[in-house]
């Protein structure tokens, strides 16, 4: 038997398996961030620069295309602060919420696949009055907007 030919067949089938896997969407780079292991380092940062580094991006550009909605100016209870964020930046890939004066800055990262509206609401905890950043990744670039939310009762008290 021609062993070279066997070998070629084997590598061939391995390659096509890889293509199949890629086609099934397991290796799609867009989904990788949230499908993969939890990004521990990103959730342990204390500044916007550090967070950006951990997320693998450069410093974000301020943008008026990111809008907070249903978000209070003054939150009575820092343990439950409703936040709504809409991004009008074309090709929005992800939306992250960062709270400047929390023990760790990053609160959440949402991946927005095509077909999903780049708009969502959730609830976050805030230790004290702070700027809240909405960080949007679109087409590989980062954009940011911020809003100050005053907290009258912190979310991390005993």
């Amino acid at each position, binding site marked *: 038997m021609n062993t070279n030919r066997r070998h070629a067949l084997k590598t061939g089938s391995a390659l096509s398996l890889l293509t199949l896997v890629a086609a099934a969407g397991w290796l799609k780079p867009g989904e990788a961030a*949230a*499908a993969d292991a939890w990004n521990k380092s990103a959730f342990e940062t204390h500044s916007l620069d550090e967070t950006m580094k951990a997320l693998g991006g450069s410093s974000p550009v301020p943008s008026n295309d990111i809008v907070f909605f249903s978000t209070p100016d003054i939150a009575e209870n820092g*343990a439950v*602060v409703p936040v709504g964020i809409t991004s009008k930046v074309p090709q929005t890939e992800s939306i992250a919420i960062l*709270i400047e004066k929390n023990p760790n800055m*990053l609160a*959440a990262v949402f991946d927005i696949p095509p077909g999903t509206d780049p708009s969502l609401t959730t*609830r976050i*905890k805030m230790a004290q009055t702070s700027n809240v950043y909405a960080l949007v990744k679109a087409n590989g670039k980062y954009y940011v907007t911020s809003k100050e939310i005053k907290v009258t009762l912190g*979310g991390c008290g005993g």
Partner: protein
Amino acid sequence: MADPMKIRANLVGDSTEVKVLMSHEMETGQRKDAQGKTIPAWFIQKVKVTHNDKVVLAAQWGPAVSKNPFVSFKFKGGAKGDKVKITWVDNHDDSRTDEATIA
């Protein structure tokens, strides 16, 4: 096993609006109990929402998401009767999956 999620999935125009309320302590690891001992962190780290096996929202969370987390969002392409499936995994590797039917 944690309590089930409350999921609402409603067709609004050509979009499906999903609202989910998860039942989870979301302990930050910053608080101390009455004896002054730190209460260990316990929070949801990953969330995935799928519709017909297609991911419509994926998220990574830190402990700064509120206790009993709430999320709402919209995606296009849902039809009445379709299922929306939501899975979360916490830092103890516990997980829970619940389904809702689009109404």
